[in-house]
């Protein structure tokens, strides 16, 4: 337990120092959101219709951008060797690292959502619906993304290959995240159905992700 909490604390501390902290994640998110109106054109009605989608895309991209080095850095400096040798099961260590990543990179996005909602012309209900779906769904993004991060170590490859392998896995999360937000805003579906699927996806990924990542790390050492 101390082992895992030490790992989480270390990873968060490094993320805050090296990544420049939560602020930077939020800034990136903000940039994507600001970018969209330029891409789509200044049509407020369309923008607020696309709002949840844009926020979800921003979250997906932000996690994609940072996740591929989740294990790579530890691999390159030899930390991963020691982590693998330790008494802590590798699955738990992987989960702890992913959790730390989510706390440092995912959570601030959710906190920033209300501000971005304003920019996208979303009302209170819509904004809180999106924030809620992000809260339920971003763990799934992180925990499916960690599979790619594990593969990146095994294959000695990162970047686009990882994105290509991971993106198909995160599509369902995106679908249901956006669907649940839309349902809350415009109907006609109920919010509950897609939202509970989203939660289910998160729970499944919480289990599958660490196991898959640990499996590929274990086989990828050399």
């Amino acid at each position, binding site marked *: 337990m101390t082992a895992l909490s030490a790992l989480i604390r270390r990873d968060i501390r490094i993320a805050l120092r090296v990544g420049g902290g939560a602020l930077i994640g939020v800034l990136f998110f903000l940039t994507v959101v600001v970018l969209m109106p330029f891409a789509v054109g200044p049509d407020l009605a369309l923008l607020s219709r696309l709002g949840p989608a844009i926020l979800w895309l921003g979250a997906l991209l932000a996690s994609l951008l940072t996740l591929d080095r989740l294990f790579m850095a530890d691999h390159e400096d030899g930390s991963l060797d020691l982590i693998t040798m330790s008494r802590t099961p590798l699955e738990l260590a992987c989960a702890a690292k992913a959790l730390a990543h989510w706390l440092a990179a995912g959570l601030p996005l959710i906190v920033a959502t209300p501000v971005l909602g304003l920019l996208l012309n979303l009302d209170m209900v819509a904004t809180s619906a999106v924030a809620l779906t992000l809260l339920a769904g971003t763990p799934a993004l992180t925990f499916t993304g960690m*599979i790619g991060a*594990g*593969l990146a170590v*095994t*294959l*000695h*490859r990162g970047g686009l*290959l990882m994105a*290509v*392998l991971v*993106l*198909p*896995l995160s*599509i*369902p999360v995106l679908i249901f995240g956006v669907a649940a937000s839309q349902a809350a805003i415009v109907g006609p579906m109920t919010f509950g159905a897609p939202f509970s699927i989203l939660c289910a996806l998160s729970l*499944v990924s919480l289990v*599958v992700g660490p196991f*898959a990542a640990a*499996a*590929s790390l274990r*086989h*990828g050492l*050399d």
Partner: protein
Amino acid sequence: MTLIDLANPTRFLALTTRVLPWLAGATVILLAIGLYQSAYAPDDYQQGATVKIMFIHVPNAWLSMFVWGVMSIASLGTLVWRHPLADVAAKAAAPIGASFTFLALLTGSLWGRPMWGTYWEWDARLTSVLILFLMYLGLMALWRAVDDPSRAARAAAVLTLVGAINLPIIKFSVDWWNTLHQPASVMRMGGSTLDKSFLIPLLVMAIGFTLLFVTLHLAAMRNEILRRRVRSLQMMQASRVAFSNEVGTGSHQENASTGAA
């Protein structure tokens, strides 16, 4: 490479050489019968002659999932039992599965145009198949990107098993979400609802395509084994040059570690 590594594939190669001609023959015969029957199948009262696309579409759609299933089992073989043939099987299956998936997508959209009035629709069935296709391509890219086959095998195995989650989603997407695509009519609880005049050619074609897959897969596995043999021989060639080089510079090998003998 240990002896066992070579021995098992060697026996497999012998088997393949013996079995392949028969398989190929059976495939040709079944596909010929299937094509003949589908050519003379009656028109559907709703779909007209376009129902003929079904005889291509459905076998390919089934196979696209079946091949991933085969790859998943092979992946278990790689990760759990470390069977030497397992990753060969998985690697050889990927391009074939991708081809079938591509055909399912293509014939599906060609069928969709007359039936639904559009080539493509972002509904659950269609998109989950598209994701399957993307994952096939991703796997192939992964195999290509990594030149150490055993390293690639393990990564690919993990990914294949994770991707297998997609299979039930494809299969049941029509039941879980109301989509354009029609629900299962052949493989469903409580028997098929399809008319015999369609069902029989469909089944013959399906078996024919399955045999085609088995044939191609065995042949591709043979190629893959040969490719690995070439690779390990080239490696040995390199290390043998190293060995003679050491003798030349006067240092000697006393330990068993040369192993090239």
